[in-house]
């Protein structure tokens, strides 16, 4: 059960991480927040958050499995997360707003 929860968290961390990396791009920021482009500081912050999210996911995967298996789980989870982010941006872009709810307009 603990393993299942940690893997679920790893998936979520990948979705968040890739979501932040997507939001660092103007076109997707505007899909989600519908406003003027962001500042360079915001873009940098989002990229850092993105990388942290992905790193956190990898750490969670390594806590569950043998390293050789964990690396495969993480890479495949990245692919799944990327599809989730892409399809959310296509059909329910506003939902990704939760990732930047703390941010004011474009930083």
């Amino acid at each position, binding site marked *: 059960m603990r393993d299942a929860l940690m893997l679920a968290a790893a998936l979520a961390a990948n979705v968040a991480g890739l979501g932040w990396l*997507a939001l660092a791009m103007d076109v997707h920021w505007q899909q989600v927040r519908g406003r003027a482009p962001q500042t360079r500081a915001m873009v940098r912050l989002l990229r850092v958050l993105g990388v942290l999210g992905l790193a956190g996911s990898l750490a969670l995967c390594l806590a569950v499995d043998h390293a050789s298996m964990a690396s495969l789980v993480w*890479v495949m989870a990245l692919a799944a997360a990327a599809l989730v982010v*892409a399809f959310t941006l296509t059909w329910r872009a506003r939902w990704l707003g939760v990732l930047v709810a703390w941010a004011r307009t474009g930083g």
Partner: protein
Amino acid sequence: MFQNFRLAMAWLHTWFGLVLGFVLMAVFFFGALSVFDREIDRWAIPQSRFEPQPMPSFDQVLRPVFESMQPTRENVEAMRGRVNGPMPERFETVRRWGAYTTHRDPVLSIFAGYEVPNAKDPEESVFGSRTIDPRNGQALPDDRLKIGSQFFYPLHYSLNFHWKDIGYWIVGSAALVMLLALVSGVVMHRKIFRELFTFRPKKSTQRSALDLHNLTGVVALPFHFFFAFTGLVIFAGIYFPVTHTQLDPLHELHEKLDAEKTGLPHDRAGVAAPIASVDAMVAEAQRRWAAKGMAGEVGFLALQHVGDANGYVSVYRAGTDRIALTGEGIHFKASTGELLREDPPPTAVARLNEFLTGLHLQHFRHWLLRWLYVLGGLAGCVCIATGFLFFVEKRKRQHAKQGSQGARVVDALAVTTVTGMVVAALGVLIANRLLPDDLPARGSWEQYCFWGTWLLAMAHAFWRTAPVAEGRTAPAWREQCWAIAALAVTAVLLNWLTTGDHLLRTLAQGYWPVAGVDLFMLAGAAVAVLAARRLKRRAERAPAAAGGIAAKAAHA
């Protein structure tokens, strides 16, 4: 031949991708299904719907079965051309007995390899095999086709086309072209990071197909690359049999030195000897693994030079908790049970090879990773299918003006290899439920139904893509989507009617192999219905938009 590297890559991607793409559809789709091959076997062979079992006792259960085995008739026939003289009625000298099991196998597959008297190549063996219930040693009838592990799985690496191994070569070429398509795709795709999350289904079919093609290709790029690459590595011995041809003397030298070094005799002594308790040897092997901190189940059990003084027993640990297929083997002298050798930890190169082959062959226990593999495989299918759609959309108007059938033929072949293939897969599962239980060669009939269904789907595809030759959309796609939905639901219903294992029951019992297959088919039916309705809406919109089609967004 080209002005620059990017154009060369684009040409390669388009033309090699198109031609081998039809093969790759089958490889990826049946590869994705093969992740759960043993579960599909459970669905197809109701007698095997029980829990996975550990390797049973050799002395009590396996030995009597092995002793009663002989090579299969097909294998004996296939060997006839490779002997100088008649084939004996009975094969007496057993070179090897083997049993392999994983954490997903209720039934156990065992094989025996026999020496062939008068063989042109004395190293050749002829094989027999059996599938048994490990709880009691009862054999399953030989003509029950394991639709997952003996049909879909070999289909994905050999197209079940065994004449002169041509199927292996076709798949191998497709795998190399897949690698080529990935590399050339990256070179062509100028905005690979910028458009990583871009999918615009509301735009023209050409643009949205290209978006989806890029998306599914890029997000699973490591998966696609590694699977094509490791597939080639696994069969390297078939594609480049260097050490069995040009460098065979070197190989023989190594075998001789190896036998001396390891103490595992290469040849029989010619002196008969009994077989001591193999169960005791297995227990000793398990004790040694536990002592090293890697307690585990037996994955592979083999006896070499059976009945001879030089005979030895090899016990390998199941690789359930790691990527490598099996752990280092422990070898015992067959006649006395004394320890001959514990394989040393693998070298760096051996570990690399084990990782690469193990990640493809997946004998590990990790349900999330397996489902992610299925997702990757289906993403590969979507990538190839959208590639076809893009190719057709981009050229159909131009071909219509030129009076060419090119785009229509490609669209028909695309329908055949995308929806048609799914229809065929459902067809074999339905045949599996409908054919009489005691029909002789039932397994062969199931296979004929598969190919027959696919041929029908192809005929339908060619008939119903005529509008493409006039630059319009083919109804073949949505018609086959409806067929998929209907067939999938039928298959699930037939499982209920013929075995009584309906979804409520299998879910309540937690019998996931069968519940999982039923649920997967129902999910597929839902997707097919959604797709059919979307395609209809798009087709209805298309004539109105026909005036403004400029299709400029042709490249990334």
